[in-house]
């Protein structure tokens, strides 16, 4: 069966887009082929900075004929109807149709339409152009003389050539005949930009990959990564150094080269006095190079990956890279010196004062005002998290000061980190310095959460202020739009609270945050009506949504979340505890049976309510006829007390066994007792007893939500 080799060769594709684009190409082509009635044995995609490639094997050589029957009118139908049928079915005379009998309808015509199968090469020539024209690049562009025409081809960067060969292994493959945007498919590709000149004609994947390799192109990105890893480790080892591995950087670097050549360079020893993070950032982010480590810490060597085997063995390349790294570190060193000088002579105050001149948000005032809010909120939260109020306030006051340092102006990624370094230099308390660094955390769902009490207080205050502020001015996230990263802030609070096992009721914290931000935003105190009548509830609902998403990602059942979260639930730790305890309980035999029992009780009650059957208001023991009734009543009373005691303490794990104890009496009740007794009073009493089961379980969860 024939194979397809498809290469889209262009000017350099951004490194971050290549992997996904190649995957998209495979999916789009294979989906379209399957839609057209073809099958294939396997498909694999490849990519380099200049090409997306699809290697598709064992494609059926043609699609099958498709036969379709079309029912026509009765044989005695008017001529016009029969003519219409012939036209619609594409028949030239009624003799080509077949006559069939139907006991009810009588005899009627049937036409068989055969759609002949098509050669795969024709199908390919049909589908590939539109895949190219509608390719899902995140950003695409027009180029050249044709770009003035409406509808001209768009690609991520100019598309230079298309290679598309198709044919069985044993024969000379053919070039699939199509053209897009003035580029005709051919069997020609290009090798490495600087190591191989001229056209390369290829037949199929095997000789394509081999010829590319000879032309200094390693087609497989995973192999390029392996080559870099191995060579880099060996080079580092030879110098007594260790490569600091960085998979993200490796992926990027492997997609910046077709022929990876790792080399080692070094920067001036004296720059090692800079904070490691600054060196790492300069080398990694700006230069796409790897840092190297020696036993006692960072080394002044770094590893770069060139795209050529230079004629001088790489001397010039190393010298050039060293020059750039040295120049960048010289700049960083200058800023580091200036900032430290300022801290030594004037302290943090000038930076803090400058925050008043920076707008945080037009409606929410300056960065300085925001810092003052965080300061007072952090002091309030300090008690809950067992941090000293004075330390928390101090940390909050300094938290954003480094935004006015030269270093952070130059390296915005170092916000917080630099602040902490400067706080250490200024002799601030270690917990304060740590809080300055950690208060932005957690940034992502896997990012570390702060654990020190002062850090926790400031991190929470920062996020509560942010959320309350944007809620107050009604700039909540909508759909995919969340420009102020409010979802991330809420998730941050959730993770800080849960991972630190904090019992922190949200409503008071949210209200405190509102009170101050409203004053800053609107110049007056918030009314209780606005604050309590909607805003706080709405924000609480937002927390509930984020909590559900978070716990679900952790593997919690969504029905249990619904069963446990009610509108006013504002203790995140308690909610998470309940979900966990409930989930574990429901996995036990007792749990499953009790759930079945409560469900049965609920069904009976619902059915009787519908019928209008009377249900007694209270259970009357005098009306009991069977022992199981009194046993159940006693069990419910016992459970009621046990559950209430522990729930008020928030100990749902301890409350659950009391619920579990209901299982046996409930089962016995259903075995021994006929709810639908003839005596109306007895029946009403039994229904009331059933109802009281739900009354107890509801204290732990709404069992009707459980699937």
């Amino acid at each position, binding site marked *: 069966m024939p194979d397809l080799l498809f290469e889209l060769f262009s000017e350099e594709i951004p490194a971050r887009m290549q992997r996904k684009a190649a995957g998209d190409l495979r999916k789009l082509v294979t989906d379209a082929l399957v839609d057209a009635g073809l099958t294939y044995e396997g498909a694999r995609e490849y990519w380099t900075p200049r090409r997306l490639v699809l290697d598709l094997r064992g494609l059926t050589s043609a699609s099958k004929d498709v036969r379709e029957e079309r029912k026509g009118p009765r044989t005695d139908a008017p001529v016009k109807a029969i003519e219409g049928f012939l036209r619609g079915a594409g028949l030239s005379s009624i003799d080509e149709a077949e006559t069939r009998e139907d006991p009810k309808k009588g005899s009627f015509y049937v036409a068989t339409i055969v759609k002949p199968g098509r050669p795969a090469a024709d199908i390919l020539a049909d589908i590939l152009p539109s895949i190219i024209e509608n390719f899902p690049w995140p950003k695409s562009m027009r180029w050249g003389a044709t*770009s003035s025409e409406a509808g001209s081809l768009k690609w991520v960067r100019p598309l230079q050539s298309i290679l598309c060969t198709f044919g069985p292994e044993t024969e000379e493959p053919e070039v699939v005949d199509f053209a897009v945007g003035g580029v005709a498919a051919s069997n020609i590709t290009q090798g490495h930009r600087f190591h191989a000149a001229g056209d390369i004609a290829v037949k199929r994947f095997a000789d394509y990959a081999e010829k590319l390799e000879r032309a200094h192109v390693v087609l497989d990105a995973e192999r390029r990564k392996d080559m870099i890893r191995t060579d880099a480790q060996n080079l580092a080892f030879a110098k007594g150094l260790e490569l600091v591995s960085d998979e993200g950087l490796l992926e990027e670097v492997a997609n910046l080269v077709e022929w990876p050549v790792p080399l080692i360079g070094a920067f001036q020893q004296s720059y090692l006095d800079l904070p490691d993070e600054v060196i790492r950032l300069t080398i990694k982010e700006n230069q796409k190079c790897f840092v190297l480590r020696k036993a006692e810490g960072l080394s002044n060597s770094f590893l770069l990956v060139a795209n050529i085997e230079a004629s001088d063995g790489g001397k010039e*390349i190393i010298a050039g890279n060293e020059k750039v790294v040295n120049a960048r570190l010289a700049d960083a060193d200058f800023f580091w010196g200036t900032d430290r000088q300022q801290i030594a002579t004037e302290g943090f105050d000038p930076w803090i004062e400058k925050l008043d001149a920076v707008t945080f948000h037009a409606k929410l005032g300056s960065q300085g005002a925001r810092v003052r809010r965080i300061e007072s909120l952090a002091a309030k939260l300090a008690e809950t998290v067992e941090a000293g109020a004075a330390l928390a306030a101090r940390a909050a006051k300094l938290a954003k000061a480094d935004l006015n340092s030269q270093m952070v102006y130059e390296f915005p990624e170092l916000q917080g980190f630099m602040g902490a370094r400067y706080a250490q230099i200024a002799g601030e308390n270690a917990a304060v310095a740590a809080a300055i660094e950690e208060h932005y955390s957690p940034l992502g769902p896997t990012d570390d959460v702060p654990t020190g009490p002062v850090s926790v207080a400031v991190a929470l205050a920062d996020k509560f202020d942010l959320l309350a502020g944007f809620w107050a001015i009604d700039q909540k996230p909508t759909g995919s739009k969340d420009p102020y990263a409010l979802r991330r802030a809420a998730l941050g609070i959730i993770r800080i609270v849960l991972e630190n096992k904090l019992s922190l009721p949200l409503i008071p914290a949210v209200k405190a945050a509102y009170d101050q931000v409203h004053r800053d935003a609107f110049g007056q105190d918030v009314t209780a009506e606005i604050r309590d009548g909607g805003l706080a509830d709405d924000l609480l609902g937002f927390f509930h949504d984020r909590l559900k998403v978070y716990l679900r990602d952790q593997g919690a059942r969504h029905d249990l979340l619904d069963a446990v979260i009610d509108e006013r639930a504002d203790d995140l730790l308690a909610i998470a505890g309940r979900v966990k305890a409930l989930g574990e309980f429901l996995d036990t035999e007792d749990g499953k049976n009790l759930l079945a029992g409560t469900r049965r009780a609920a069904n009976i009650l619902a059915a009787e309510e519908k019928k209008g059957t009377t249900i007694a208001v209270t259970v009357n023991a005098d009306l009991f006829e069977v022992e199981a009734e009194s046993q159940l009543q006693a069990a419910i009373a016992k459970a009621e007390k046990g559950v209430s005691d522990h729930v008020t303490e928030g100990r749902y794990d301890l409350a659950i066994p009391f619920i579990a104890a209901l299982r046996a009496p409930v089962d016995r009740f259903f075995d021994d007792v006929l709810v639908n007794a003839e005596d109306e009073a007895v029946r009403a009493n039994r229904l009331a007893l059933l109802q009281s089961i739900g009354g107890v379980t509801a204290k732990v969860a709404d069992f009707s939500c459980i699937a």
Partner: protein
Amino acid sequence: MSHDPKTSFQGLILTLHDYWAKHGCVILQPYDMEVGAGTFHPATTLRALGPKPWKAAYVQPSRRPTDGRYGESPNRLQHYYQYQVLLKPSPPSLQDLYLGSLDAIGIDPKLHDIRFVEDDWESPTLGAWGLGWEVWCDGMEVSQFTYFQQVCGFPCQPASGELTYGLERIAMYVQGVDDVYDLNFNGGTGADRMSYGDVFKQSEREYSRWNFDVADTQILFRHFEDAEAECQCILAAEPVDPKKGQAIVMAHPAYDQCIKASHAFNLLDARGVISVTERQSYILRVRTLAKACGEAFLATEWGGGPAEK
């Protein structure tokens, strides 16, 4: 004197002039106004609009007030040179043409690691954007390579290719010096040698002081307002010369005022007197001017409008 880019700064410029002249460019002189980048030259901004083919190359002195270091940094300058090439429409072999120019100035791609690294260009004040790369030579950004997609808020039909070379960086590279002020400017030796420092160190010091401490921000705010008003006034004028009755759209004079407003904004921004929120509104005001200028240019002969008699 030498024309060899390896021994003189001016040799580098002359070599690029020579190279791009051979490839059909008109070799223009710098625009006679203060700008932050070579893109502002009307030979790029305005001529990138409209359907007519256009090829130009020129050096543009560019000013970045915040980069001033009183002549003390080996690689930061508040005044430096960009070499700018605009080719409309972008030719199919633009990357090869560009690499040819590197070869001409002595950067051998078999010896040096040349890389095209994603860098999408955008100028919010000009309402312009394009896709392209920073070109790296041994880890150093030596050029900006952009396929213009939109300028002054209008689509580029056809798209132009824009190349911007950072001349001082490249010169330091090919001359093998670590301090910009040590560059040999004229290729002379002994007493005849003029360094980049001889030419610019004093003025760098003077401008640094002025930019950081002396420039009067109130005057700059006024300059901004005046330029904005003048630009609007020029464009509001009847597009007909009252003396001869001839149709004349004044796109270029209006655009000069747009450049002035944009530069005043840059200086104010550098002085840190524009808050984050105000910043957006200033950018929008300049963009509005740029858009109006682009619209005016599209109505002129070189913008593809009716031919003027």
